[in-house]
């Protein structure tokens, strides 16, 4: 009497989407596939396709007209011809300007990363170890600047550092000659460190807040003074946070345009500015595209290698 048994089963809930689901199933698409497809489609349309377009442009040469570059594909009397120009990339290596710009960008990004780490680590440590009721307030203070426009904050910095800015006015009270801060590398460092500090603090904080306090007690119990405990326990255990934070600062800093443009001087050679000049001043789209692609390679490859190394380390640990 199975019909008798099923009598008490609750009736199937009416499902709003079942009609849509059936219709999709008819053409062979399941709901699961759709969920996976959404981000894939997004990435394809807004990331992969534009990237391919830029890469394509980087393989052409500049010409006057609209668009300001030679077409990749030409159709001459029925024969389709693909013309690839590699001179844009060759110029990147041969022209000292580009090499210098890349190296200088890497240098500025690296030094800025080290400075943000040195400032951000103690801050993240204090926030992570602070009592619960303080922690959210302190984190809020770190995130608060994001509520103001990035550009506005950079302009505000120049208000501090320019010739008759706040700092120099303050120094004048003590009879100190005004300092030249704007249009120097110093101003660029200040700008990068100031704007990217939260990106260092947040991953470090999420790491340090998980740090088990009893490990520090165990270290002290075994005879380690606080500095030793920091070097032997806290620092190695926070390495993933240090790496994550450094990546989040280094990668955007290397391609930074706004900060060197607004705060830096003519001597502050950074790849973001070179790219801007190529694109807008020289209208050399292909060259600018090549600069962008090369930067991607310079930045993405180290990151991928690092990630690989980290994964391999974790795998090795789990396997042994």
């Amino acid at each position, binding site marked *: 009497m199975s019909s008798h048994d099923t009598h008490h089963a609750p009736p199937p809930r009416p499902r709003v989407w079942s009609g849509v689901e059936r219709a999709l199933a008819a053409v062979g698409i399941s709901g699961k596939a759709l969920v996976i497809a959404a981000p894939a489609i997004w990435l394809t349309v807004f990331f992969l396709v534009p990237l391919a377009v830029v890469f394509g442009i980087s393989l052409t040469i500049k010409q006057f007209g609209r668009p300001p570059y030679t077409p990749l594909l030409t159709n001459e009397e029925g024969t389709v011809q693909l013309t690839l120009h590699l001179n844009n990339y060759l110029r990147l290596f041969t022209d000292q300007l580009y090499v210098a710009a890349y190296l200088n960008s890497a240098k500025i990004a690296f030094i800025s990363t080290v400075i943000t780490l040195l400032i951000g680590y103690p801050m993240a440590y204090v926030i992570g170890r602070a009592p619960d009721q303080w922690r959210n307030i302190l984190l809020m203070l770190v995130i608060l600047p994001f509520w103001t426009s990035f550009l506005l904050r950079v302009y505000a910095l120049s208000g501090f550092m320019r010739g008759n800015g706040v700092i120099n006015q303050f120094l004048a009270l003590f009879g100190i000659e005004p300092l030249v801060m704007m249009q120097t590398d110093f101003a660029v460092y200040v700008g990068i460190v100031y704007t990217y500090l939260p990106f260092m603090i947040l991953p470090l904080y999420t790491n340090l807040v998980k740090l*088990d306090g009893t490990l520090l*007690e165990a270290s002290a119990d075994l005879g380690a003074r606080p500095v030793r405990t920091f070097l032997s326990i806290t620092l190695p255990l926070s390495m993933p946070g240090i790496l994550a934070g450094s990546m989040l600062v280094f990668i955007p800093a290397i391609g930074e345009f706004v900060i060197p443009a607004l705060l830096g001087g003519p001597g502050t050679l950074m790849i973001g500015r070179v790219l801007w000049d190529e694109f807008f001043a020289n209208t050399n789209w292909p060259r600018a595209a090549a600069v962008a692609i090369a930067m991607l390679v310079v930045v993405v490859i180290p990151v991928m290698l690092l990630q690989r190394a980290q994964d391999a380390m974790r795998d090795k640990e789990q396997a042994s």
Partner: protein
Amino acid sequence: MVKNPQLAIDTRPWRDPTATPFVRLRNVTKKFGDIFAVSDVSLDIYKSELFCLLGGSGSGKSTLLRMLAGFEQPTAGTIEIDGQDMTHVPPYNRPVNMMFQSYALFPHMNVEQNIAYGLKRDGLPRAEIAERVAELLTLVKLQGYGARKPHQLSGGQRQRVALARALAKRPKLLLLDEPLGALDKKLREETQFELVKIQETLGVTFIVVTHDQEEAMSLATRIGVMDQGEIAMIGEPTDIYEFPNSKFVAGFIGSVNMVEGVVTEDEPGHIRIRSEELGCDIYVGHGVDCAPDQRLSWAIRPEKLALSRERPAGLFDANVTQGTVEEISYLGDVSVYQVLLASGKRLRVTQTNTMRGNPDAITWDEAVYLTWGDSAGSVLTV
């Protein structure tokens, strides 16, 4: 010449009033805000003792241990270890090591590095460190596990690494916070004996914090029962169990039947208590510090009560009462009877199952007599 073997019974320094204690807590108090975590604790612990601090959660036992390790500073009072005042010495300068409840093994170091950590801080030469680590791995039976990381070990193995690490520096005093708490029952029993063996071999003074009374009873030379930040009783396991000094201690350790009564006879050699709850008089065969007509409590362990179908002779017209068997739980080795008295009071009685499948065993709903000896129970005034 025959050398008399030294018996454990001879080495009870706490019974010798001239012995100098190894650890001495004097009026130690710890306040967190307005709350007294530990209040006015004075305690002497002797060399090579295995002292258990026993108490429920929030009794202050862990705070006391943390003050001994140096992680907490007492609000008042002094802590002396081996004759030296340690009250304000930081943990890294104390001759004390601790085994943490969570073990607190360093996750980024392997077993060897974990054990060697304290030795490296002492600046020992490398060869000596390696030798000591190997020695300790043998002691805790973990040879061949030196290169493993903590996450590759089982709970029992981690516990032994933690023990080895805590013992590495040959501390004068080892503090153990719930050392067996994270192990399952069977492993706990095995480890318990191993722990005692290691303690006896090395002669290190152990202070163990635990909430498990069985663990405390089987491990300890002496137990300090803690309640609400105070020491309720200090004594050998048998004292704590057989001669509790308060209703709290009697109720906290093991199971107990407690009844109230009024003193009717107060002689130097005996007292008599009339108990409405029991429905009979209690004759206690020794003098008790009390007054006639005083209301007090009397506690008796379930195994000290005897069950019978016939009325037993009894003593001085006391120590016999009557009831009905209401419930029996058979536990294998013993059976626990719950007997309902006329007053509505229920008593627990345990009987050892000496005979296999005894057909004549007392069973449900039978009317039974209960009796006990004149020194089987404890008179408790607090």
